[in-house]
């Protein structure tokens, strides 16, 4: 056979080569193709050339093989403090940034708050960038140049899907077109005449645009009122597909939920109070009796077990503000603990000086409604039941994660922790990472925090993203192409879509940017052709006691768990051997069976649920262990010789239990 013939036979190029595709489609099937190709070569030189040209010019899989290049772009989800600051930093660093916000305007929560601690200034000022040379100077969001050419803001938008892999995500964004186009001058004529149109938040919003409420009856009268042709009812939705090398989750906390917590008349939330103070609207507060209830739905066994970290401070901030303006107003704060940490202690001192009452003990607004507007609070310091008669009850509701965060986490395939916030693979050194490579998180979507901390994290996150987009020496799994048989199993099992495989073109390649180095592919490869940098040398372990136990653990969560246990003084028995691996999924069935020859017991320690860095490594390992247990039973070996346990620094109980059980059995 000549070279071309063998090349033709080797490369099944039906899908790509037009002639052959046509032949195979119309005529019989693939089995005949080789014969046809050779026939063509023999009898027609031109046809042969044609095929060669086609072969050399193959663009397999629609030519999508430049995946390994990282796109210099990022997509920020959420236009709050975290999202805006992160997007601004990234666009200043030269990254093409898309900011997606589900509301018509950015900074929705910030607009409501008005003034903020610890600087006691307007919430809307943002840091200056280096153009002015003065980093510390403040600049209002309106005066700040938002028209950076790298920054694109998509308001009224939602994330619908995510394809691709780290470094080259394709995000599907659904955007509702705004009813007001760029001709709008904010003249306010439609706002005056129609109840359903408002200029958002007392004109504090970016971008400036009127907002239509859900009650709009579509009467289209506003179109006549408008002098500038700025209103069109033909809005509809559009689908935008921005590229993103990295995705940043900055969905923040749920402000809506605090609104829902309101029950009964004269019960407001701190957010409403902030709005009143911002608008100088004091009719309901002036010289009356205001009671603030702290820790609403927080630090509660039944609801949220965490502390929101900001409620004490904004309650103190508001109490001071009211007391300063109207000294005759009675302000009482019912608290569990006052947590004004760091320099913010001055707020507590100032509130004490101004005569704010503090009662250690709190209750719920239900009680107030039930007892005829009288609030009974048990003061834990004096053990007395205190009777309060508030005119206004203010609830300090803290942060809960955005209600759509769960949905978003499903789309992005990232982990969510027990409280519903975004999970980080490493709380200390990777607090703005998520369990998926290439997706970052900052701000309140990670954990409740105040505005300075949010802005700091957003900026740190921007640096992390920038580093990720500009990484140089990437390590990842490697395929030995001499051994590879092009079966495509690795591409099927890869949890990160990191393997580019084109069957028709005999092309396989690992995209190292997206590769997590978890070794799942290597553990499935039938020809052992993939080296996932797993470096355990079994050769050293030839002289092992027969009763010994091997613990195979992943170097992420499980290693942290082992460290934690060693600090706690746990000592493993002598015949326990530890084997670190990149991920629990890297341990194949064959590996386990092989180890069973040397070891009496094998324990695989992986991450807890939804905490796996490589997405489903722990699930894969558990599936394997379940399979092996059945297999061992069938061939007459006790199934409990192989076991799986989760292990992390804060969840060690199952591991301890299993190790203890093993130890007892041996005795």
């Amino acid at each position, binding site marked *: 056979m000549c070279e071309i013939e063998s090349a033709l036979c080797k490369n099944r190029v039906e899908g790509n080569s037009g*002639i052959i595709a*046509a032949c195979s489609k119309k*005529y019989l099937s693939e*089995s005949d193709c080789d014969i*046809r190709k050779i026939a063509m070569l023999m009898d027609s030189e031109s046809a042969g050339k044609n095929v060669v040209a086609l072969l050399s010019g193959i663009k397999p899989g629609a030519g999508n093989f430049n995946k390994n290049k990282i796109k210099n772009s990022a997509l920020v989800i959420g236009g709050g403090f975290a999202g805006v600051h992160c997007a601004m930093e990234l666009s200043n660093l030269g990254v093409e940034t898309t900011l997606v916000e589900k509301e018509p305007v950015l900074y929705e929560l910030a607009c409501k708050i008005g003034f903020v601690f610890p600087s006691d200034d307007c919430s809307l000022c943002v840091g200056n960038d280096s153009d002015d040379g003065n980093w510390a100077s403040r600049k209002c969001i309106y005066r700040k140049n938002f028209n950076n050419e790298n920054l694109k803001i998509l308001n009224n938008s939602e994330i619908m899907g995510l394809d691709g892999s780290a470094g080259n995500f394709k995000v599907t964004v659904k955007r509702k077109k705004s009813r007001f186009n760029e001709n709008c001058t904010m003249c306010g004529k439609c706002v005056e005449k129609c109840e359903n149109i408002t200029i958002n938040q007392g004109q504090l919003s970016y971008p400036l645009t009127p907002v239509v409420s859900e009650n709009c009856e579509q009467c289209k009268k506003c179109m006549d009122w408008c002098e500038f042709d700025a209103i069109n009812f033909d809005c509809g939705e559009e689908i935008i597909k921005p590229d993103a090398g990295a995705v940043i989750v900055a969905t923040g906390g749920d402000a809506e939920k605090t609104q829902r917590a309101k029950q009964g008349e004269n019960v407001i939330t701190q957010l409403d109070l902030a709005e009143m103070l911002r608008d100088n609207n004091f009719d309901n507060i002036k010289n009356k009796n205001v009671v603030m209830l702290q820790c609403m739905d927080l630090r509660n066994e039944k609801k949220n077990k965490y502390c929101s970290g900001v409620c004490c401070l904004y309650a103190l901030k508001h109490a001071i503000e009211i007391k300063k303006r109207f000294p005759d107003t009675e302000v009482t704060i019912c608290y569990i603990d006052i947590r004004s940490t760091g320099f913010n202690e001055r707020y507590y001192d100032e509130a004490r000086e101004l005569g704010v009452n503090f009662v250690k003990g709190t209750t719920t607004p239900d009680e107030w409604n039930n007892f005829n507007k009288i609030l009974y609070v048990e003061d834990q310091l004096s053990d007395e039941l205190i009777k309060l008669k508030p005119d206004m009850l203010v609830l300090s509701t803290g942060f809960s994660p955005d209600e759509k965060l769960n949905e978003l986490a499903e789309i992005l395939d990232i982990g969510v922790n027990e409280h519903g916030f975004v999970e980080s693979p490493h709380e200390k050194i990777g607090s703005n990472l998520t369990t998926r490579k290439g997706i970052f998180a900052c701000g309140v979507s990670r954990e409740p925090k105040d505005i300075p901390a949010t802005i700091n994290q957003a900026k740190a996150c921007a640096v992390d993203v920038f580093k990720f987009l500009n990484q140089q020496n990437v390590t990842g799994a490697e395929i030995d192409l001499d051994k590879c048989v*092009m079966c495509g199993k690795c591409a099927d099992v890869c949890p990160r879509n990191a393997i580019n495989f084109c069957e028709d073109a005999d092309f396989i390649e690992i995209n190292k940017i997206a590769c997590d180095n978890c070794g799942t592919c290597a553990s499935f490869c039938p*020809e052992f052709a993939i080296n996932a940098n*797993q470096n355990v040398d079994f050769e050293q372990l030839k002289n092992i006691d027969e009763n010994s136990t091997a613990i195979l653990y992943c170097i992420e969560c499980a290693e942290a768990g082992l460290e934690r246990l060693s600090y706690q003084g746990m000592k493993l028995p002598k015949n326990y051997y530890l084997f670190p691996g990149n991920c629990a999924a890297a341990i194949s069935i064959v590996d386990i*069976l092989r180890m069973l020859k040397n070891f009496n017991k094998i324990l695989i320690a992986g991450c807890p649920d939804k905490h796996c860095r490589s997405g489903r490594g722990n699930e894969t390992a558990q599936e394997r262990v379940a399979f092996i247990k059945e297999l061992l039973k069938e061939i007459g070996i006790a199934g409990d010789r192989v076991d799986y346990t989760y292990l992390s620094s804060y969840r060690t109980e199952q591991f301890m239990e299993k190790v203890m059980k093993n130890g007892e059995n041996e005795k």
Partner: protein
Amino acid sequence: MEKMKNEKMNRPELLYKLIQDLKKKEPGKEIPTSDLLIGRLIFDKDLCYGCAACAKNCPEEALTVEDVENIRTIFYNFSKCAFCGKCIRNCPKDAISKENVFDLPGFLTRKTGEINNFNLIMCECCNEVIGTEEQLKEAAEDMLKLPEFCEYELEKLCDKCKTKKFGNKWFLFNEKEKNDTEK
């Protein structure tokens, strides 16, 4: 996780060897597996028309094809199968699917089972294999749907002989049709 001592051995073979070494009794049951691990393959005999694309694509020689005289037989050896799913992807008739069951007794017997057999049609001129009866039947049906009747297609000749008889007209026709569909 570990570098294999014997590099020639592939995963199914190693699995077989390890189970043989460890086993203390003969297994009698099949084992349920998960979607990810894949289990046994199932073949739909009625759909299959014997093109042997599965056998040609099988990287582990678990699926094989034999043409003896006028009969084509397709074999499946479960013990060699790496569950890669390549045959499933390549089957033009979608006749292969997976079942989440690991047939352990079948795996250990290492036997090759016959899946299907077909009558072959040979070239009238040179006695080369053209395809199976079912394949040609289907091709003839397709032929009737074409806009322009093509006499070459109904000749029971292999490609080489067709080229000899008709010159390169027959594949130029194909090219023409390809251009038409592209338009």
